[in-house]
């Protein structure tokens, strides 16, 4: 009884702290804007919110958000799938590991932003380049985490399967991959954040639409309020997507986390 009451109280406290943090941040922003005293350069939360309202109320601009989110989702899905495949190959085939692993470690140190201009030269301004950049940003964290997941499979699980004469494929499918699921999910969660970051940069240079383009285009009119509106949208969308992903992953894949703390 008292435990559930304590849990409920804790939940309210936590919510209270969350709200307080947001209020403090908004207040600090407001004070900073007043101190700068130039709405053109540094808009207040109020002017940014009204710009955000304008963006969301206008169908054409609202559509920019949809466009960006679609790029994130598609690029993230493709990049993650590719990351699992590459990570699995490196983790299980020695010749692939020897040839591909140095390349992966080389490429993952190069920020996706560096590829935007070459990508537009190869693939043109538009979806092709943007997708390439988002896939590039997501593939490596998933690859690296898949590799880490494959490396930590308890040896006794594999030995157990071998005593029953399980084939390599069966060991892979029913022991190694399931053991690696929590690692892969962590890699995907990182990647989801990276895909938000990279898509905006790519849209600024190689896009004709999307939130990145909206922000970049606002410079022409010195419309900092709309830039801030775009930033608020990106932050909110990133937060919501991260929450959706982690809740969905932990619910949907709960049994692969069984027995672990913090599920």
């Amino acid at each position, binding site marked *: 009884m008292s435990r559930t009451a304590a849990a409920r109280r804790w939940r309210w406290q936590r919510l209270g702290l969350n709200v307080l943090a947001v209020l403090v941040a908004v207040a600090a922003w407001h004070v900073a804007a007043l101190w700068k005293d130039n709405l053109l350069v540094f808009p207040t939360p109020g002017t940014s919110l009204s710009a955000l309202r304008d963006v969301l109320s206008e169908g054409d601009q609202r559509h920019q958000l949809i466009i960006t989110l679609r790029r994130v989702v598609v690029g993230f899905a493709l990049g993650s799938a590719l990351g699992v495949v590459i990570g699995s190959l490196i983790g299980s085939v020695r010749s692939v590991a020897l040839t591909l692993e140095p390349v992966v470690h080389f490429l993952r140190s190069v920020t996706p932003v560096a590829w935007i201009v070459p990508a537009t030269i190869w693939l043109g301004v538009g979806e092709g380049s943007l997708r390439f950049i988002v896939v590039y940003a997501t593939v490596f964290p998933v690859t690296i985490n898949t590799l880490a997941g494959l490396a930590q499979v308890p040896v006794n699980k594999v030995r157990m399967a071998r005593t029953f004469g*399980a084939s390599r494929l069966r060991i892979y499918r029913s022991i190694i991959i399931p053991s690696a699921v929590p690692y892969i999910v962590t890699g995907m969660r990182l990647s989801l954040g990276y895909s938000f970051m990279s898509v905006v940069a790519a849209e600024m240079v190689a896009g004709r639409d999307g939130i990145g383009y909206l922000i970049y285009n606002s410079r022409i009119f010195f419309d900092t309020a709309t830039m801030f509106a775009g930033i608020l949208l990106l932050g909110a969308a990133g937060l919501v997507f991260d929450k959706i992903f982690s809740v969905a992953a932990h619910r949907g894949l709960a049994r692969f986390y069984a027995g672990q703390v913090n599920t």
Partner: protein
Amino acid sequence: MTQPTTGSQPRSSDEGFVVIDGVSFSYPGSSQPILRDVSLTLRRGEFFVLLGPSGCGKTTIMNQVAGFERPTTGSITVDGRPVSGPGPDRAVIFQGDDSLLGWLNVRHNVEFGLRALRVPGAERTKRVQRALETVELAGQQGKFPHELSGGMKQRVQIARALVVDAPVLLMDEPFGALDAQTRTNLQDALAGLWEQSQRTVLFITHDISEALILGDRIGVMTSGPEARLQTVMDNPLPRPRHRGTAEFADLYQQVEDAVTAAKSRPPAAAGESR
């Protein structure tokens, strides 16, 4: 790669069912062997306990018989066939619980070997049910490993090994991590279960009382490295065995003396053969 080797005519003489012949083992690049010249013959249907201090290479012997590792020198045969890798004729019950698959429930964990061996579905269900009844887990088959106690988890491992009808069971300190009460219960349960099934068991432990409750014969190992098999003792206690009897206490003393002697044996003895 894991199938038992076929071709050679199986010799099913009851004398040498599992034959460990002059096995030494050292890791590649290491000059100091973990095992030195261990020879041991298990009769069919025998419960053999390998007793020794921790770090003496008991698990290494088991890994060789299971086929996880290959002896550096010497050979191992099971029913006349040389061991060249793991195989379904030798089921293993591992020390900890990390061989259980946390994402599968009890029933599916037990079923794993049958699936790998491509046993048809209806028969799988029947055999899993029987195995779970044997280890008294029939009511827990929907549970996941993390929902089970340590003792129950080891029962799941035992069921998983029994269900494939492997003639040889290899048990590596299966009760080592359990509390005293649970350990005692499982020892008695295993003794009863073995009497029904009459499989050949190689059981590894450092617990003398456990060795006396379970083993037909007890092999005492020297301390590692360069561990050897010091002596093999018969265990004449009638089954079912009880821990409180005078004979039990007597034998306990004898085994303990043998263990102490094996421990204090100077490593120089190994140098004789150099």
